[in-house]
């Protein structure tokens, strides 16, 4: 069940309520689809007046990190011979940071990716790299939608619901 910080005091209550419901429904769908896990909620709980943009900042850092790591993996897989240990090290990093932001599908893909690095399966690694790229793009898109919805709620004078 969602909880609410503060009170809405500007736009008609029904508009704020509608926006909040849409937000809760959207976030709930992200959990149900496995895009996000509880770690994301934990990050949201750390956001307050002294760190009002914490979740957005962490998400931004994650995407900067993940872009760099994915480029490193791609470059390593293009070299001959492939340095699977280096690829594995980058995947391990991505697994850690995706886990820290609650990006569950990215994290799970990294686990599979690492197993292909261990067996030095070039084809397996290529497939996983593409999947990880796609999943990070999906996550970015969905989080941007989520943050946009948060801005709409706050702009209407409401407060962003927190999932328990």
């Amino acid at each position, binding site marked *: 069940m969602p909880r609410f910080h503060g009170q809405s005091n500007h736009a008609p209550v029904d508009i704020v309520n509608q926006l909040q419901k849409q937000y809760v429904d959207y976030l709930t769908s992200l959990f149900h689809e496995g895009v996000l896990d509880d770690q994301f909620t934990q990050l949201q709980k750390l956001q307050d007046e002294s760190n009002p943009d914490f979740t957005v*900042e962490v998400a931004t850092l*994650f995407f900067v990190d993940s872009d760099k790591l994915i480029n490193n993996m791609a470059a390593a897989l293009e070299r001959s011979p492939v340095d699977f240990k280096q690829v594995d090290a980058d995947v391990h990093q991505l697994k850690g940071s995706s886990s820290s932001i609650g990006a569950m599908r990215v994290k799970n893909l990294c686990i599979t990716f690492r197993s292909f690095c261990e067996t030095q399966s070039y084809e397996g690694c290529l497939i996983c790299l593409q999947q990880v790229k796609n999943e990070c793009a999906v996550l970015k898109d969905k989080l941007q939608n989520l943050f946009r919805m948060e801005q709409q709620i706050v702009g209407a004078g409401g407060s962003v619901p927190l999932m328990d």
Partner: protein
Amino acid sequence: MSKQVAGAASPSSRSAGSRKAEMGDGTGVGSTPAPVKKKLSVLIVDDSSMIRTIHTILVNRVGVEVESKVAENGKVAVDLFRSGESFDVVLMDWEMPVMNGIEATKELRNMGVDSMIVGVTSHSMDTEKDTFMAAGLDDCYGKPLSIEILKNILQKMKTDD
């Protein structure tokens, strides 16, 4: 963003084997002045800026008076201690460039550093954690740290004799 304060204690104020934070007791007139309440100092060592950001916020949220600093790899952490800085708690990542967490932990223990060093790693297997512990850690947890685990670590530091 969270405050990051330069490491506090001078070398002379920390004796080997002492990890206790001195606590003020608010005693009344005529009594011996209470020692100044010292904040716990935490060094966050991780090559991921994202993890450093998350753990810095976590550290500042646990409800214990604390100041934190960050280092992007083991060598930076070791150099901080070599320069005379000291920390009550070190949150040490394992895999880092230049000097990893195992090397950094061994180096700090060889230097006689008695800070609480807590490993924080994505490595999940018990054998892997055992390897990290053997370097000289006081404890080891998976990434990311939760606020409950961090509270336990810092509360333990505050009350440790």
